[in-house]
Structure formats: structure tokens, C-alpha cells
């Protein structure tokens, strides 16, 4: 079966999206000052949505992550508190 250009493009974009889905798995950025905890996962998602610049940061996170694993970086524990209502 031959696939149309449109279908190929659509599938490629979906594939790229799925790749993005697993990329930032281990990263946990610190968030801006706010009374509300925005949730680290929610910020990470926005980094991805943010696009190219965000990808650079995600890549940098992995670099630090790798250094951390090799014992080159000091570790700093972080926990995500439960969300709040207002």
C-alpha cells in the first residue's frame, strides 16, 4: 500500500511526538516563585510545548543527569507536594 505524503507527514509527526513523550522522563526543573505549586510534571510538559529552546534545556537536563549518575554533580533532593485548591 502506498501512503500519501500527507499520511506520511502525519505519522512522522505522531512518531516525533511519541519520542518527545519519553525524552524528559527523569528531569525535574525548579519552578518560579508562586503561591501555587504548579507541579513539576506540568512545567516539564510546558517545556516540551515551549519547543526548540525547551528541547535544549531538556537536553541539558539529561547531560546533568548523566553527570549526576557518574557522580560528577552534587545531588539535591526534591519532592513534589500535593496540589492545592483555592
Amino acid at each position, binding site marked *: 500500500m502506498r501512503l500519501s505524503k500527507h499520511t506520511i507527514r502525519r505519522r512522522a509527526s*505522531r512518531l516525533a*511526538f511519541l519520542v*518527545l*513523550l519519553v525524552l*524528559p*522522563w*527523569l*528531569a*525535574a*526543573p*525548579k*519552578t*518560579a516563585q*508562586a*503561591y*501555587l505549586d*504548579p*507541579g*513539576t*510534571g*506540568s*512545567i*516539564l*510538559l*510546558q*517545556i*516540551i*510545548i*515551549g*519547543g526548540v*529552546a*525547551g528541547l*535544549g*534545556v*531538556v537536553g*541539558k*537536563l539529561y547531560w*546533568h*543527569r548523566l553527570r*549526576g549518575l557518574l557522580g560528577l*554533580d552534587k*545531588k*539535591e*533532593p*526534591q519532592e*513534589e507536594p*500535593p*496540589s*492545592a*485548591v*483555592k
Partner: protein
Amino acid sequence: MTGPIADPASFRDPAGRVYRAGERILRTVSPEIASDYEQVRASGLIDDLVERGWLISSDTADLAALDSLDAALGDGVHAVIEHPRLPLISYPYEWGFLQLRAAALLHLDVHLAALERDMTLCDASAYNVQFLGAQPLFIDLLSFRPYREGQFWEGYRQFCEQFLNPLLLHAYCGVPHNAWFRGRIAGIPSAELSRLIPLRRRFSKRVLTHVVLHAALSKSVHKPKTDLTVDAKQAGLPKPRLIGMLTGLRSWIDGLAPAGSTATYWDDYSQFKTYSDDETGAKHDFVRRFVADVQPGMLWDLGCNTGDFSMTALDGGAGYVVGWDNDLGALDIAFARSLEAGTRFTPLYGDACDPTPAQGWAEQERAGWQGRGAVDAVLALALIHHLAITNNVPLEAIVSWLVDLAPCGVVEFVGKADSQVQGMLGLRDDIFPDYTLENFLGLLGERAKIVERLSLSPGGRELLWYDARDTSAG
């Protein structure tokens, strides 16, 4: 004399606090956010949103006009603002699908309008939206802050938990959000919803992004090994992307409907139009007479269904009507019709046998039915037999509850001869020897004066207008 009382739900954001001083609603602005607040004011955003009817109005409170205790609120704060008092505070777990959807769309519209003026919202709480009739209204003036380029949407997770996920639960899983949301007042977490979304819905880009990926990312950072931190400000969310996120969510949410519903099911309420027969017409006349005589500021219509009698009560002169029903389909119709007619009628999801409880922090943050302000009059039409026969509530308890809820009202007694009650008793033993009109009249007569009664069908349905305000009757 007591001073202003801090609203028990207003404590999370240190930017300010809401106080009730008698009938007045006052809001303090902390010195810490004075500059932000003045920037927001100067941007013209507040006036613009108030003019559009999207935001509650606010005036600088005239402290000199307040009594000394209330005026003391002004000590050490940047400003004291006064808002008009809303007739009713309701909660997202009391809203039908259409109401929650309308609130979500308003929230997004308000946020987009703010961004146009380089302002943003620091949260996305569904509790910041209230209803005036069927019109959603944003009530938190201090949620607005100046926007910094690249700033993340801090309320994104809250928006998902309190707006998007509850709507998706109903639209994609066929489960109304109300019980779950009431059980977890922070809303429905993406991680939990993600496990329930049907397979055929999972692979749309929107569901993958806002639910599946969002849940996966939130889960991954809970793992103990994720200890790496960077300053996310370096990455940032460019403004066009933020606007894209908001408009994308807006068009998605705008197209959502409860699973299994047809696109127009809430438009087609003509079948519920009244006066289909003499009995219904007589009932409406009775209600109108009662309301015209009593002139209640706040009337509750218990078992309001699609709002037929709520509308009649408004026609008759009721100041505001809150309708409660546990039929979500009927509530959506009631909401759509109130919105269309622009009335002061707010239909809400609720059940007299399982009313909204007082809950949240110290069990005071979100009020139960009892904490919702004075109810001047009540309609309880075709309700008593559900309480007495379906839920086994003793007649005496029903009468006490009703008279305590509102000092006067119209209550319909449906006798055992009625076909509906016959149907209810069809599959169970009749353990209700006391369930008779005579007995009910006797109990109600002990607590209130029966001003007028009308027999709708012999041995079947009887309308009773009670008034407990005249203490000599009790």
C-alpha cells in the same frame, strides 16, 4: 458587636484575604503585591473584564464609611476593596456538565484577555468562578499578575484537575464528575484519569499531551531518583505557545459534550414546556400565587428538574432561585434555558438525601447546604414521596427538615393512590402505614400554618402552602 469575619476559603494566596462584614464583602490587598496590583489596575484589564460581564465588579472600600472594626482591616494592608455580594456561592461538584464547561471557557477567555494586556493569571481554580443565574463570573481579582516573558502557566495543572479532567471524565468515559470532585475537592488528577480514558481516545494528540504525557511526567518526577533540578526559567514557555495552549484547550473544551448525548439534547427542551394539562397549569398558578404573596429574596426549588417551576417562581416575583436536582440531563437543560433567558435562576446538582457536605480545611472551607445563606422560601414539588418511600425518611423528619430549611413554602404530597407511588411500592413491602395525607397535614400543621391547599387529583396529589413565620401557628 463582631468585626469582619475572614472567609474560611480565602487563605491560600497571601496576596490578600476576603472578609464578610455583615452583608458586605471586603477584600484586602497585601503590601507584598502592591506593585503588581497597581500594574494590573493601571493596565485597564479590570475595567475591561467588568464591562464585559466576566469579572465581579470592585470598588475601593470607603473605610471612613465602615464601622471602626471593619475599618481596622485597612491597617497594614495596601488596599481594601469591596465587591457586591453574590446571592449564592456554589462549587464545581454542584455544577452540571454545561456549567463546568461554561466556567472553563470563561477561565480561558479571561486568561487570554489578560495576556492581551501583558497580564496573566497566577492560578486556575474552578472555585474562582461563580454563577450569577447561568452566567459564569470570575471572582478573584488578585489572581491577576503582570506577565513576564517566557513565564510558565502556573495554574496549568490546576486547570487540568479542576476543569479539563472532570469534563473529559464525563465526555470520554461517560462518568459524571460530581461525585469524584466532591470526594476530592482539588479535582481529578491526570494520573488517575489517564488510567480510565478508553483506548480509542488515548491516541489523539490532545489526550496524549494534556492527559497521558502530563500524567506520565507528573508520575516520573515523584520517583525518588529524580533529584536533578535546573532553573526552568531558562527554558520558558514563549508567549505565542502559551496562547496556543489556551486557545487549543478552548476549542477542545468548547466541543465536548457528555458521552452518549446528542449535540442538541439540551437545546430541545420544548418537550418540557409547561401547561401540558390542567393539573400542571393549576400547579403553576398555585406557585405563582404563593411567590407573589411571600416575595422571597431567595427561593430554593428542590427537585427542580428542567426548571419549569423555578421560572414560574421568578415570574411571580422571586428575587433569585436556586434549583437542586440529581438528574444531570435535566440540569443541563435547566442551565441552557436559564442562560438563554438571562434569568436569576441557578440550577445545581444536589440531593436532599445526600446534600453537599461542609468540607475542606477544618470542614469550613466549602459550605454544605446549611452554610449557603438564608433561604426565604422553598418549593418541594413531587419530592416528599421520594424521600419517604424511596429513602425511608420518616414523615416527621421530613416536615422538620423542610420547615427548618425555609420558613415558608409549597410542598406537594403524593398519596399512595398515585400511580408513581404505586410503582415505587410495586417491588417492595409497604412498610409505610403512616404515609397518609392526614398524617402529613397533622405534622405540618404542628409546625406551620397551612395557608392554602389544593387537591390536584383525588387521593393522589395535594399542594400545601405552609408558613411557619407566624409563631402563633406553632
